[in-house]
């Protein structure tokens, strides 16, 4: 064959780079587990001896697994109804719910955690105090220092991600499959149980498994709230997060490998479901989504569910931050506290936020570009290249979130050092962006895989049979049809990258301060109020960005499926004018394309 152009090789190359980066963190974790005192050049099993020498390893591991399941349970309890409401019903506030989910992404986990400690801790929790029932008053009403609470909190904050990941599958369920049951006399409820749920099954299982892996690795809640007994991620943190004393990357690596083993079982399940999911891809024919179903009386349940989630995940933390921003130090509301309220923290925050904000934006953009481009290539490889080995790629990428963030950061620092002479990225925000993008690959591939599987492969085949090369098919057929999935993934990545603390903290060498680390620095040094003010600014900016992103990229909904038309510049300009006009005059209805 002529080598006239690299062709589809570019996609393979990008996919390969993505896999390579993931392997850095995955194998970085494994390699350090065999190192001695963090010196990766020496091989040793000492870390494993130390790990297995711990008396509590068994209970810690068990608790870690429970944490994973608990998190998934609570996440599912809300994500499933929300995805259902968004994709299949006439719920009045669908746009609102979607915006809420996006807004939640902007709130950092540690803020949510702190606000719950503040309200529900057994000694001084405000809610407990309000009811006069604290630990020293005859038994606390609420005790947030429990595994159950942590599962609950982790679960509800993961809901937006869960919903975004499940939506494509819900949206693309072919209506005729259900209608076939209805016309045969099967009740709607029964149809849902026997037709719809099984068809959604692979997607739901995949999302659950993914968030199991996320759940066992989340740090903020476990660390800040804590509970009787540890989980593995705390041991990893301990090993690395000393401010004095010798390093113990090796131990962290060993514990991380145990975490892998736990997640590995989950991933094997997932790989099997991915294969099953391929069976459910619509074969030939066109997919018609089910018309929105009327909710009827159920809408009150829906309002309740959404309302509860709104209060629990957004209102509580935001009110907390606002209060903390107003008072000089952490304290419950009281007359004295109210007298000390001041707005000085807001002006201080404005003064300091400049450079970190710039870096945060670079970090966001960098992470999004890297994650989206690499993930798209990997998704293509896994779902459309018809390469038998491709599912290994998917499993490897899936492992990425199982690597604790701290370890990923360290691994990339080492990488940065190693390649410094070819690519002087070490110490810059760009290296952080690469690390962040790599961590986010899995979020993207999950969402994109689900969508890609719903796009019939015949569309690709039609292109090949018409003489179009694989690369051109990738660019002109695959990418445009994937646009919605790419968009949602990019949105997720952007938000998560902006608010993540652990990774920039680990990789900061002085020139790459971001907003999250600024908040951390302020908080660490007693400027809680300024920290809260900065956090508020960040949340507002992120929420605005997210809400406008949808408008700006011009996603149009046509007949239930989201498709981006090839826009001419004039189209785009008129869309902008439209948006501007509707902002100026909110009562004027926005002009849309063909029906919505």
């Amino acid at each position, binding site marked *: 064959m002529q080598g006239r152009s690299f062709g589809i090789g570019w996609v393979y190359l990008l996919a390969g780079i993505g896999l390579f980066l993931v392997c850095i963190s995955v194998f970085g974790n494994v390699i350090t587990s065999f190192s001695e005192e963090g010196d990766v050049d020496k091989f040793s099993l000492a870390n494993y001896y130390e790990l297995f020498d711990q008396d509590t390893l068994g209970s810690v591991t068990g608790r870690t697994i429970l944490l994973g399941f608990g998190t998934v349970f609570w996440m599912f309890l809300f994500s499933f109804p929300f995805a259902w409401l968004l994709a299949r019903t006439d719920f009045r506030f669908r746009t609102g719910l979607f915006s809420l989910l996006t807004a939640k992404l902007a709130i950092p986990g540690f803020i949510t955690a702190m606000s719950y400690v503040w309200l529900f801790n057994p000694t001084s929790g405000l809610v407990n105090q309000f009811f006069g029932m604290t630990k020293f008053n005859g038994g606390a009403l609420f005790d947030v220092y429990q595994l159950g609470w942590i599962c609950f909190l982790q679960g509800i904050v993961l809901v937006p991600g869960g919903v975004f990941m499940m939506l494509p599958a819900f949206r693309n369920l072919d209506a005729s499959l259900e209608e076939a049951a209805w016309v045969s006399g099967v009740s709607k409820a029964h149809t849902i149980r026997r037709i719809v749920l099984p068809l959604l099954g692979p997607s739901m299982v995949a999302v659950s498994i993914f968030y199991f892996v996320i759940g066992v690795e989340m740090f903020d809640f476990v660390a800040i709230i804590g509970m009787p007994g540890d989980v593995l991620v705390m041991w990893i943190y301990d090993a690395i997060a000393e401010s004095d004393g010798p390093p113990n990357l090796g131990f962290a690596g060993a514990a991380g490998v145990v975490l892998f083993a736990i997640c590995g079982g989950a991933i094997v399940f997932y790989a099997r479901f991915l294969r099953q999911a391929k069976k459910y891809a619509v074969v030939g024919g066109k997919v018609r989504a089910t018309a929105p179903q009327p909710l009827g009386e159920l809408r009150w349940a829906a309002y309740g569910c959404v309302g509860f989630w709104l209060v629990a995940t957004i209102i509580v933390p935001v009110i907390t931050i606002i209060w903390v921003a107003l008072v000089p130090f952490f304290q419950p509301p009281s007359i004295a506290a109210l007298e000390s309220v001041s707005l000085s923290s807001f002006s201080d925050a404005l003064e300091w936020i400049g450079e970190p904000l710039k870096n945060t934006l670079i970090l966001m953009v960098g992470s999004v570009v890297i994650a989206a481009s690499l993930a798209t290539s990997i998704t293509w490889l896994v779902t459309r290249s018809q390469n038998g080995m491709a599912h290994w790629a998917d499993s490897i990428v899936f492992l990425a979130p199982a690597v604790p963030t701290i370890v990923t950061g360290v691994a990339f620092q080492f990488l940065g050092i190693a390649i410094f002479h070819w690519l002087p990225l070490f110490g810059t925000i760009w290296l952080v962006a690469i690390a962040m993008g790599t961590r986010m690959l899995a979020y993207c591939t999950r969402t994109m895989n689900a969508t890609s599987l719903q796009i019939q492969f015949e569309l690709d085949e039609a292109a090949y049979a018409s*003489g179009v090369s*694989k690369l051109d098919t990738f660019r002109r057929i695959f990418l445009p049809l994937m646009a919605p999935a790419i968009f949602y993934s990019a949105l997720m990545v952007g938000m998560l990258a902006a608010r993540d603390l652990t990774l920039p903290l680990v990789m900061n060498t002085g020139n790459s301060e971001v907003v999250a680390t600024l908040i951390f620095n302020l908080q660490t040094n007693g400027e809680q109020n300024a920290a809260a003010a900065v956090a508020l600014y960040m949340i507002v900016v992120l929420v605005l960005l997210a809400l406008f992103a949808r408008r700006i990229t011009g996603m149009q909904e046509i007949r239930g499926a989201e498709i981006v038309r090839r826009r001419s510049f004039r189209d785009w300009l008129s869309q902008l004018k439209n948006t501007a006009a509707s902002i100026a005059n909110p009562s004027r209805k926005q002009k849309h394309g063909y029906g919505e």
Partner: protein
Amino acid sequence: MAILETRKLEAKFQLRDSVVHALRGIDLYIEEGEFFVLLGPSGCGKTTMLRSIAGLERPSAGAIRIDGELVFDSSSHLFVPPNKRPIAMVFQSYAIWPHMNVFENIAFPLRRGRVRMAENDVRTRVSEVLEMLGMGDMSDRPVITLSGGQQQRVALARALALRPRVLLMDEPLSNLDLKLQIRLRAQMRDLMHELRLTTVHVTHNQAEALETGDRIAVMEQGKIVQLDAPQTIYHRPANEFVARFLGDMNIFSSRFQSGNSDGVTVETSFGALVGQSTSSRTFAAGDNCMLGIRPEDVEIDGSAAIDGPNLLEGTVISSDYVGEGFVHTVAVAGESIRIKRHHKEAISTGDTVRLRFPPSQTVVVTPAEHLISEDLEGGLAGEGASRAG
């Protein structure tokens, strides 16, 4: 000159604990300008065959040659990918790209396909092909707003615009309503002939096959069981499967008595009957065979007195009106025989009638159970192997 040739093409699929043989050694030889039909029930391998020619599937053995060029050869591990073969394909689901309009769907392969045309040429070609299919004014329409028939035509236009050496069509009409199907199938055939475009058309619809094909290859279980012109396939089926698959056929078990290429005698439950052997197999006395006659060929006594060999007498069980005439069911010796007549009168149930099977229309064919071993091995050694148009 053969424009498409396959030799001993085999395809296998691995299931969990078994292997499916989709193609069991197919030899084809298709002339330039032929409208060639692959006909068969689902699962017979016709779609696998088509996709193998296209390069969308990889056979396990054999060779494929298109327009003189070898595009697949298992012995030398040669596999030319689909985008390098001089073909175009119309899919059953049309597979038109939903994010593009009509113009772009057709233009995209012209711009980025095997031959990259200049923009002006692209525009000319697209309007040409749209005009040809009566869609000249639909250039700007987004394809998802089109009806099924219109989408099908876009898919066809896309393929035609490429001016391929071979056009492959995978049941392109099956998603359309009947009237449209009937109208389009003739149009399609005429168009391909006019363009002198070699077409391989896969269908399970035998009426469509008979109407459009220059030659038909009837496939079953991965093998071609008969390859002939439509008339031959219809009137002289080589075996029970083909006989039953095409049109309606009265078919009965029988036992071979004697005969040669001019005529044979077989023993049936109606007694000894004479007919023509259309099977490639030579029967020996006592062999099982099947006797068949088309309902429209059976003579039934009415105004003209019938006489001659193959006379039967039976009772009318029913007369069903089918718009263009009647289908009478007559019981003879415990069997039901169906007769089709275009006359406008029914025959009363219970009436006794006399039937005659004209020997020239009566065929003796291989029974179905012998299909795999004998007819399949025979392959195309018999008629139609390399019949030029």
